[in-house]
Every structure is written in structure tokens, then in C-alpha cells.
């Protein structure tokens, strides 16, 4: 037995009088005529957040959530129940509820457990414990003072620090048995600036599957947290000068890094296995077809060390992979969980994720990004006569059926005769995924991943994700401003 399994099972199972040895019998209660698959997902999560505003640390919060999710599958049917109590009695009741969906059929059998041997992508220690409370408060205060000292136009500073530590154990009828310990931290600085009666906001932050020391690491001449403050202020000051964005269809250059939100919306969701099994995605049935310009190679990679979207194993116990979604513009692969992989006759890709024990797993992205191309980013901007350069984006959304997607800019500039011009106000951009991806005409050599702030929502479930891309040019997309 691996130390990970031992450690997590001691923590999650022992308090309720359970052990790993008891799991086959519990799964046996789920197995029965007509059940094709079943699993138990034990989970606990401790989280905290600290917020500073008006120069004082006003509040902090701490949360402990734990429970077990019990799932039984029969064909395309899923039965699901969960409990906050991790005891044999609670599991039995949940199992009876979950298996109520079974049709008549073959008797399922519990397979012998085997645990995948996976590389460890992040540390085992509690990320909340590396600083004591006084040090956390001190950090927030120090960053507040440093931020306010940067510019007299700053009227309001909000600094926040948040950490999560999760332990999961998943045991399935097919014999998978896996455990994972997952840290996740986040730091954010938001400022309001005012000049001549005009106000604007700027915000920046980062994090990953690491601990709070990440924010104290030196990046250049200062620590990472101070860098976030400087960047938040820079964005706010740029926006103070912003003029209305143009309205209409224009060439758009997207900067590297967080602009990968474009790929997450325009491509990523449409390539999740569930939508393709159901035929409800604009990409359904298009495997092997050209769906993007030949400059585009896009992957979903859950195996990057310390990244926000990474996982050693997914929430069904499958090791994560680097899955090529689109290669040189051709559709190569979907992201799969066990249910959709089984129904589509392919292998799961380690993308079965769930928000908690109280939610069902679904195919979800991990870290989704486009590989670098050959163009110099400066040359990409020079190639545009009249258009928009988006240095940073806000959130996005997609309708996977029609392929329409949107994202909004948070820092953008006009491009006039190949040069950056005035900053423009935030605007929503809208396009159709496959059409826009075919209009990618230049890809930069400057691939960057985001700083670790992404959260993806699907069917009411939130999971942390990463995005990334090099600078790239789209020949035409609709820009939703109010100007000429």
C-alpha cells in the first residue's frame, strides 16, 4: 500500500470506524444486477480566507467540509447519494438510494483493487500551516502599505489570501483505488484609483497547488505579492485613460497567458466528452476534421507541477494526462471521464472532476493551452492596420451547442498602423468557436500560462483550472464597444 493511500485512509476512514479493508464489502452493496460501474468518493476539505480592506484585516473565515459520495451507473443512468457522515450505516443508506436506478441485467462484481503509480505533482503538507495567523495578517498589512505607497491616486485597496487543503480517496467497482492530497492557494490585490473625478478598478493575483511561501518568493527585485499589487495598479491607471472601445468586426491580437480564456471557451468546453457523446457540441462528430487554422495545436495537460489546474489523479482515480485536443488545426481528442469514455468506447483521459463529494463527476478541463508558434509578438502587432490588442481578459462563457462564445477585455488598446494606441474601455468580444479558431492567422513564440487564478463553472460546479497561450492574432471578431 502506498503511503498516500495509508495516510489518507487513516484520516478519512478511521474516525468513522472504517478501513480500506471494509471498502470491497461496501462496494458490494452497490454491485448487483444491472450495475455497470460504481464508486465511493471520500473527501474532506479545510479552507480559510483572510481579507484586508480600509487598511485593516476585517475578517477571516475557516471552513471544514467532509463527506462521502456514492454513485452507481447502469448504462447511461446514474444514481447518486451522499452523506456528511463517513460511517458504515450512512454509506449503506446512500448505497441503497444510489443503486435504485439499476435495471435488470448482469451481476456486477467488485474487482481486486489496484492503485496507479503516479508522480507526485505537489507537496503533501497543509499549505495553510506554513505561516501562522500573525504572519498572514502581517503579510496582508505589509502589501496594503506597499500598495498605497505606490501612487497617491489609490483610494481603496483590498488584499486577500486564501488556502484550501483537500484529501480524497476514491474506490470503484472496476478496482481503481486512489488517494490524493491537494493544496491550493491564492493571493489577490484589487485597487480603486481616482483622478479628476473618474474612478477605475485594477485587480491582479495568482497562486497554484503550493503553499503561501509562493507569494513571498522573490521575482526580480521584490516578492511575488508586491508584484501583484504593482500590476493591479498599472491596470487601473491604464483604464483611467481608456476611451470607448470600437463597435464592430475587427482584427484582434490577444496577449499571452491569461488570454487563453479564449481557448477554454472557444475550444475547451466543446471538446468535453459528455457534450460529444450527446451530440450537443458544435464539435460533435468532427474527430479528424480541420476545426482550427493549421497554426493551432492545443492541449489539456493535468500533469504540470504546482499548477492550479493540475491533478495527480482525477476524481475517479484515473491518472491525469497531457491530451492533445487539436494538432495543427485537426481535431485529435476529447477530454473524458469514465462514464463518457465507456459509452463512447475510448479510454478515460483523467478529466473526471467534481467540486466535492456532494457533486457528480463530469469531464472537465485541467490546464488548457496552445503551443507556441513562430512569430515575434511585436511583428504580430505590426501586422495589424486597425484593430484591438487585448493584454488581459476578464471572464468568458460559451454556448457549446451553437459554438458562440464571449470573453471580456480588462486591459486593451487600439492598434493603429501597426502601433499600440489609446487604451480602450472593457468590452465583450463574441464569436463562434470553430469559425474564430480558423481565423487565427499568426501565433507568437511567447507561450505563457496564467498566474493561477482561473475557476471554471459547469452545471453549477466550480473547479480550479489553468489556461495559457502565446500572443495570437484573429483576423476578425466582433468587438462590443460603443465607439466608432
Amino acid at each position, binding site marked *: 500500500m502506498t503511503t498516500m493511500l495509508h495516510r489518507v485512509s487513516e484520516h478519512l476512514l478511521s474516525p468513522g470506524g472504517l478501513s480500506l479493508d471494509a471498502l470491497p464489502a461496501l462496494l458490494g452493496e452497490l454491485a448487483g444486477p444491472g450495475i455497470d460501474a460504481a464508486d465511493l468518493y471520500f473527501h474532506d476539505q479545510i479552507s480559510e480566507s483572510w481579507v484586508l480592506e480600509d487598511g485593516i484585516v476585517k475578517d477571516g473565515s475557516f471552513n471544514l467540509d467532509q463527506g462521502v459520495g456514492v454513485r452507481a451507473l447502469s448504462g447511461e443512468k446514474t444514481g447518486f447519494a451522499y452523506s456528511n457522515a463517513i460511517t458504515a450505516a450512512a454509506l449503506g443508506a446512500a448505497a441503497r438510494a444510489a443503486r435504485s436506478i439499476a435495471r435488470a441485467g448482469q451481476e456486477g462484481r467488485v474487482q481486486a483493487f489496484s492503485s496507479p503509480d503516479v508522480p507526485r505533482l505537489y507537496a503533501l503538507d497543509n499549505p495553510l500551516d506554513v505561516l501562522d495567523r500573525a504572519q498572514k495578517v502581517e503579510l496582508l498589512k505589509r502589501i496594503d502599505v506597499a500598495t498605497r505607497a505606490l501612487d497617491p491616486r489609490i483610494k481603496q485597496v483590498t488584499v486577500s489570501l486564501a488556502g484550501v487543503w483537500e484529501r480524497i480517496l476514491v474506490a470503484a467497482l472496476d478496482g481503481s483505488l486512489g488517494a490524493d492530497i491537494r493544496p491550493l492557494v491564492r493571493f489577490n490585490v484589487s485597487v480603486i484609483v481616482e483622478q479628476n473625478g473618474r474612478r477605475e478598478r485594477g485587480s491582479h493575483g495568482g497562486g497554484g497547488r503550493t503553499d503561501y511561501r509562493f507569494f513571498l518568493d522573490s521575482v526580480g527585485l521584490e516578492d511575488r505579492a508586491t508584484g501583484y499589487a504593482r500590476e493591479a495598479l498599472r491596470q487601473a491607471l491604464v483604464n483611467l485613460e481608456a476611451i470607448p472601445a470600437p463597435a464592430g468586426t475587427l482584427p484582434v491580437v490577444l496577449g499571452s497567458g491569461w488570454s487563453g480564456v479564449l481557448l477554454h471557451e472557444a475550444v475547451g468546453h466543446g471538446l468535453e466528452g459528455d457534450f460529444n457523446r450527446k451530440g450537443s457540441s458544435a464539435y460533435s462528430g468532427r474527430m479528424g476534421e480541420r476545426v482550427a487554422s493549421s497554426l493551432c495545436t492545443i492541449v489539456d495537460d493535468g500533469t504540470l507541477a504546482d499548477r492550479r489546474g493540475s491533478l495527480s489523479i482525477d476524481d475517479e482515480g484515473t491518472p491525469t494526462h497531457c491530451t492533445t485536443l487539436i494538432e495543427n488545426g485537426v481535431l485529435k481528442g476529447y477530454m473524458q471521464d469514465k462514464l463518457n469514455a465507456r459509452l463512447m468506447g475510448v479510454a478515460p483521459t483523467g478529466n473526471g472532476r467534481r467540486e466535492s463529494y456532494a457533486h457528480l463527476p463530469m469531464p472537465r478541463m485541467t490546464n488548457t493551452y496552445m503551443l507556441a508558434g513562430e512569430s515575434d509578438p511585436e511583428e504580430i502587432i505590426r501586422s495589424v492596420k486597425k484593430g484591438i490588442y487585448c493584454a488581459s481578459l476578464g471572464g468568458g462563457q460559451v*454556448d457549446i451547442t451553437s459554438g458562440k462564445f464571449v470573453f471580456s477585455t480588462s486591459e486593451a488598446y487600439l492598434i493603429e498602423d501597426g502601433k499600440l494606441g489609446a487604451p480602450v474601455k472593457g468590452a465583450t468580444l*463574441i464569436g463562434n468557436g470553430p469559425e474564430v479558431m480558423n481565423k487565427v492567422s499568426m501565433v507568437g513564440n511567447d507561450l505563457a500560462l496564467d498566474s493561477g487564478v482561473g475557476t471554471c463553472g459547469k452545471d453549477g460546479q466550480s473547479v480550479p483550472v489553468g489556461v495559457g497561450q502565446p500572443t495570437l492574432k484573429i483576423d476578425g471578431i466582433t468587438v462590443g464597444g*460603443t465607439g466608432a
Partner: protein
Amino acid sequence: MSSTDIVGPQALPELQAKVERIIAEARRQGATASEVSVSVEQGLSTSVRQREVETVEFNRDEGFGITLYLGQRKGSASTSASGDAAIQETVAAALAIARHASEDEAAGLADAALMARELPELDLYHPWAITPERAIELALDCEAHAFDTDTRIRNADGTSVSTHQGCRVYGNSHGFVGGYASTRHSLSCVMIAEADGQMQRDYWYDVNRQGELLGAPAYIGRRAAERAVSRLGARPVPTCEVPVLFAAELATGLFSHFLAAVSGGNLYRKSSFLEGALGERLFPEWLTLDERPHIPRAMASASFDGDGLATYAKPFVANGELVSYVLGTYSGRKLGMPSTANAGGVHNLFVSHGEEDQKALLKRMGRGLLVTELMGQGLNLVTGDYSRGAGGYWVENGEIQFPVQEVTIAGNLRDMFRQIVAVGSDLELRSNIRTGSVLIEKMTVAGS
């Protein structure tokens, strides 16, 4: 799960006792004041797709949260664990945070004298005795009607029936304790229409405290199907500046942006374009926005707010003028104003409206865009700048011409509020915000 352990009003005394136990524990550990919220919720959701059962989900959630104070310092903690050990540990966690938080002169419970004394019965609890088998039948029936509506309905994205009942009790160390049991039932249907290589998805749903009052499955299925089919052939329109009619189900969003902009948290953080706008005429003179928190069985009714204050009916906008901010105790103190008993939000907002239904408003609009879908979060509350992805229908001579997609609509909320031409009589009844369709004089539509 048997019907004997169904969550209902009979659980309230036990939850109340738990609130009192947690407050006592906080006092024992040294807190000078505390407030506690305890809840238990139970439900069933079933979904079908393509005439087959897709999921049957049972949920039961319990938990509590505490905010406690050491003088003017504050800490919060919550958990889904139960038992005395969990209470002790959660109180200790909140206390440890309070010890390290800063003194905040605005922190603390609302004044004891302001605690709600009478809690009107709002009739929010109506359990629906529906078995999973019956819920599945209803969903299948709804989807079948959707498929029968039009041959271009070739796929489905899920039809679901869900029923939830829960109990929540709030109490604080002033001795206030209040609680209620409530239910929420829903039926929703998402269908996919396909023609000429284009797929379009749309939905319809209903939600009610009483399961028996939900819209008929046949109606909801047909409506979802008709909406999806009517979008086939959607295309962008050229960039233009035209009147925009927000369908009632989306117009609720305009007023929820307004509520966010006049809520105390955004005001004291200097994060709202409506900071200092109290007393200003923001809307046309005929427009009134008022809160009616005590409507029996309404989805957002409540007798007390998140601080234990009695909720009361009042206008936020009268004759177009902003007459009240939306304040809780904390944000009120920050702004030097009394709380409006809106800690936790607004309970049933009514928008005044005229006699015209959506069809009449299309006539009034003449030429413009009817918006039935919005995408993205393109709103800057600091400046009021608004830019969102949109879909809907192009209108000429007061008649729908063709479906529109892949456009954006943009403007500034301050201008949009002032330029409201009319609010329709076609009221959206499912939302916390009760409004008809809203016609706005002019917005920038960006397209091809």
C-alpha cells in the same frame, strides 16, 4: 430515505437548541458576542434525456456557521461536521481568527433594540410528496411534448424535476432566534433544434414553493422546443445604434445590477457608479422599485434579515428618484446610515409597469433588437459600463423578422436606466425581481 425523516418545521426546535448551544459555547470560550446560522436541507433531483433516465440524485446537507466577536474584532468559521466536538472546534477556529483580526469600529451585532420581535408566518413550506418514479414520469412527459412540438427538435440536453425542503435558524447573543422551513420545486427542459447544419439550444423552466403549482409539463416542454426552433437560422446584424427590448426574464438582470450598485458593500468600497446618488433622479418619473418582503409563498420572502432585523416594505426608487440605498448593519455603519434590513439582500423587488405586453412593446419599438439571451459578465460596476454578448430577434415595423446571434449590446447603465421607455405587463414571476419586458431607447449593437 423514508418520509419519517423528511426535513420540515418539526426540525426547528432541535436546530434552535443547536444555535443556543453554539452561542453558549462561544461565550464559554470567551467571545463577547456571536451570531450563528444552522441549516439542514434535503432533496431529490431527477433528469431524463432522449426518453431515458439520466440521473437520480438524493441530497441531504447539514451545517452551521458562526461569526463571533472579541470586542471590535471578528472571526468566522463554518462546517458540515456535526456533534459537540465539531461545535467546539469550529468556535475555536473562529476565535483564533478574531484574535488576529484588526479592531474595526463598524464591526459587531446590530443593536439589540432593533431585533425583530414579531415574525409573520410566510407560508414557505409545502413539501411535495413525489417519488423518484413519479418525478421521472413528469420529466419524460415534459420532454415528450418538446419532441412532439416540431420535427426540427432532434436532440435534447436534459429535462429535470427537482424538489428540495430545508430549515434554517439564525440566532445571536442578544437572545434573538428566528427560523423557518421552506420548500423549492422546479421543472426545467433544455432542447436542441437542428436544421441546415445549425444547432440551437434553448430552455424553459418553472420554480415554485408548491410542486402542484408548477407549470404543466406539456407547456414547459413545448415552450422550450418553440424557443429552440425559433432561433434556427440566427445570424448577426450590421453594427448599429437602435432601441433594445429586454425580454422580461432577462430584464430582471438590469434591476439586479441596479441593486448591486446601490448596495452598501459596493458604496463604502467606492466601487459603484451610483456612490452618492441618493436623492438623484436615475429613472423616468413614472418608475418605482419597491421591496415587499412578506408576500406569502413568494420565492424570496423573509421575515428577518441576515442581522436579525425585521424586514419591511419600502421603495428604493420612487418617481424615478433613488430614495434608499440597500444596507445591512455593517455597511450602514460604514456609511453613517441606519440599516434598511437588507443584510443578505433584497426580498421580492417589484418594478412598476404599464399596460402593454411584449407584443405591444415591439410595436412601440418599431425597429430594433429584442434580446432573449445574454452572455458573459461584461459589466464594470465602478463606471457603469455595460457590454455583453446577446442573442434574440431583429424587429422591423413592430414585427419579428429573423433570429439574431453573435452580436453584443453596449451602453452605460446610468444612461440605460434614464432611457427606459416602458416596462411591460408580461411579468416574470419566477424571479426575486418582478418585472415585465424593458424597452430601452438606444444602445450600440455590434455585429457584422
